[in-house]
């Protein structure tokens, strides 16, 4: 009797476990399939976009009328951006696939730049036409390679989950058709590195002068420490460590890190080897109280900059985040704001000490012998170029870096349209609307509402 019950219970248990296991198994498979399908969609989407892209560049080449050239180039631009986003959804991060992505970004930039300009006034130049032809051929090659991979994937029912596993386990050498296929694509694109994209194209390499404009002698580690001391104000008890930059850096710098176990101070700083300018520093501690107003902190920040020899600066933005104040300064020369030369200072609102500093932009664009063009337009003429609904509240002259990565002199207008505030830059020489920026309103704190 008892035996019968026990057998019954056990049998039920076994059956239950088996059922549960089977359910789990099914659920796991469903999830895996779901993930796999997402990858498959991204991949097939990508090959489809590349097909379209190739065709679209082809039709652009065949076009004669300038009216239809612009929309066609815009279409090319849109396709590159979609293809780019598809690549981002594939598990290829561990596979070197950058060149292909860069190639897509380049086509995008090129088509955008040519599409937005007035092709009636300034038609495609001979060089740009050549570039387009080259792009046509190259996108054809990529399309071809991708199609091969696609064919194999479909033929052999290859799964992207396997790619992900192979990449994650570091066994890339194992024969995996998808990985090999993508490696071939990457190799094909690497060959294009030197292709000439014409003068419109200079701007993809972000203007990065690597602090070339700084002049001065190279400093030693000891000097670097004393500079750090001056900026970060730490005492002798702190542990100081200096390291040089690694080989991968474009410029020489010392990294200094400070740890004071007693006061809990934790700071780090990078200093250029040449002339010893601080690139940035963080002097981290918890700031839990506010004793100073933002305005007091502003004065502290300005005094700090003055004390360290930064000249002709003007505050252009101040913001309070919890108990810290962030101040953005720019150079002001002959009443003209130089926006590329920006410095950021972060002040703790409990005791007014400087807890953060960033001068990267400033060092990159700093130029003592900057030649500012003379404005051709008067301020009234420039004002006539802005939207008539725009109510100008403030105006000044300013130098900004425009889309083509050139420094240009502009009239800056601050004002409102309806409820929103805008900053508008009008080129002071040719009256082009260089930049329109919508100024951000404070964002509602959502959890406070409930």
């Amino acid at each position, binding site marked *: 009797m008892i035996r019968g019950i026990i057998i019954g219970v056990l049998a039920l248990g076994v059956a239950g476990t088996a059922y549960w296991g089977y359910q789990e198994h099914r659920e796991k498979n469903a999830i895996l399939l779901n993930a796999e399908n997402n990858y498959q969609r991204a991949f097939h989407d990508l090959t489809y976009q590349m097909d379209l892209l190739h065709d679209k560049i082809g039709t652009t080449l065949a076009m004669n009328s300038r009216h239809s050239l612009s929309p066609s180039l815009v279409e090319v631009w849109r396709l590159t951006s979609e293809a780019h986003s598809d690549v981002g959804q594939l598990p290829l991060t561990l596979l*070197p696939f950058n*060149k292909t992505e860069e190639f897509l970004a380049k086509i995008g930039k090129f088509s955008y730049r040519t599409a937005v300009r007035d092709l009636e006034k300034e038609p495609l130049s001979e060089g740009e036409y050549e570039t387009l032809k080259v792009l046509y051929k190259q996108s054809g090659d990529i399309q071809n390679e991708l199609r091969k991979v696609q064919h194999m994937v479909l033929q052999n029912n290859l799964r992207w989950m396997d790619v992900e596993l192979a990449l994650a386990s570091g066994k890339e050498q194992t024969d995996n058709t998808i990985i090999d296929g993508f490696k071939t694509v990457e190799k094909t694109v690497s060959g294009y590195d030197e292709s000439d994209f014409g003068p419109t194209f200079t701007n993809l390499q972000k203007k990065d002068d690597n602090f070339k404009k700084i002049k001065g002698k190279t400093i030693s580690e000891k000097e670097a420490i004393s500079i750090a001391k001056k900026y970060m104000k730490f005492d002798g008890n702190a542990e100081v460590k200096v390291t040089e930059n690694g080989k991968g850096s474009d410029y020489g710098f010392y990294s200094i890190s400070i740890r004071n176990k007693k006061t809990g101070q934790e700071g*780090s700083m990078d200093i250029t080897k040449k002339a010893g300018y601080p690139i940035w520093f963080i002097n981290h501690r918890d700031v839990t109280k506010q004793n100073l107003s933002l305005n007091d902190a502003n004065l502290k920040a300005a005094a700090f900059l003055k004390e360290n020899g930064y000249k002709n600066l003007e505050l252009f933005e101040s913001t*309070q985040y919890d108990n810290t104040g962030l101040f953005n300064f720019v150079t002001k020369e002959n009443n003209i704001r130089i926006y590329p030369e920006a410095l950021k200072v972060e002040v703790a609102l409990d005791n007014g000490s400087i807890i953060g500093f960033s001068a990267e932009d400033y060092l990159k664009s700093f130029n003592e012998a900057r030649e500012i063009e003379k404005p051709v337009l008067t301020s009234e003429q420039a004002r006539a170029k802005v939207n008539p609904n725009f109510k100008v509240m403030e105006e000044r002259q300013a130098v900004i870096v425009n889309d083509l990565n050139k420094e240009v002199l502009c009239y800056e207008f601050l004002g409102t349209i309806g409820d929103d505030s805008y900053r508008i830059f009008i080129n002071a020489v040719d009256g082009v609307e260089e930049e329109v920026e919508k100024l951000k309103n404070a964002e509602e704190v959502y959890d406070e*509402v409930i």
Partner: protein
Amino acid sequence: MKKKIVTLTIPILISLCIMPFTFLENNRAFAFSNQVIQQGAVGDDVIELQSRLQYLGFYNKKIDGVFGWSTYWALRNFQYEFGLPIDGLAGTETKAKLVKASKYNKQFVKEQINKGNKFTHYGGVDQNKQSAPQSKAPAKAPAKAPSPKPAAPAPKAAPTKPTAANTPGGFSSNDIQLMANAVYGESRGEPYTGQVAVAAVILNRVNSASFPNTVSGVIFEPGAFTAVADGQIWLTPNATAKKAVLDAINGIDPTGEALYYFNPATATSKWIWSRPQIKRIGKHIFCE
């Protein structure tokens, strides 16, 4: 001996001279604290400033306690109309004029903010008409009020929190939250600089041509971050991670423009070792 008395008396004399003034000062600016309020500021004084400007009809937006552009223009218009120097700063003179010209019903405003009501603070309009309770709040809210009320009359009781917050241009507070999640999941054991560095790498990727162009695209790129793959990204980040993200967005890049980083102790991919290395922060090596 005599010298000592002199040195002692002088400070006392000075303080005696100053004292009446400070009392006066306190009396006059009994409303605002004596800070100069400037753009970007947050807090009680800003709430008062916005309320007073709204009372006079200069400020028409929500009273949220953040000195943004709308408040700035309202203040400048006020300064223009009242013949003050137009600098967009609420200094002593501006504040005094403002206090003289307007009324501020502190209790009303604070109560509305604490309850999360929609409200305005215009002069010459019946207060009951200026507040609309949040649909969620029960209609008989006054009955419940006693608990916050005793705190209100006390002069420096728990300050009302502004109902909005500053966020850096181009990022919503949800973007910041998402980045803080990633930073916390990836580097919570790291020194502060190391956390800023991880946030900076995310931003460098957003700006790079070889990666997706959005914060979410970069973070959720398959295989890009281990914290995303193993779900640690969904841990609740602490305030430090969020601060680190803000620092990175505000331009501090401790990595020297790195696009990759890895932990040499756990890295499985050989390829990552072939990247040119820039520097090491904490346990992570950052590379191009």
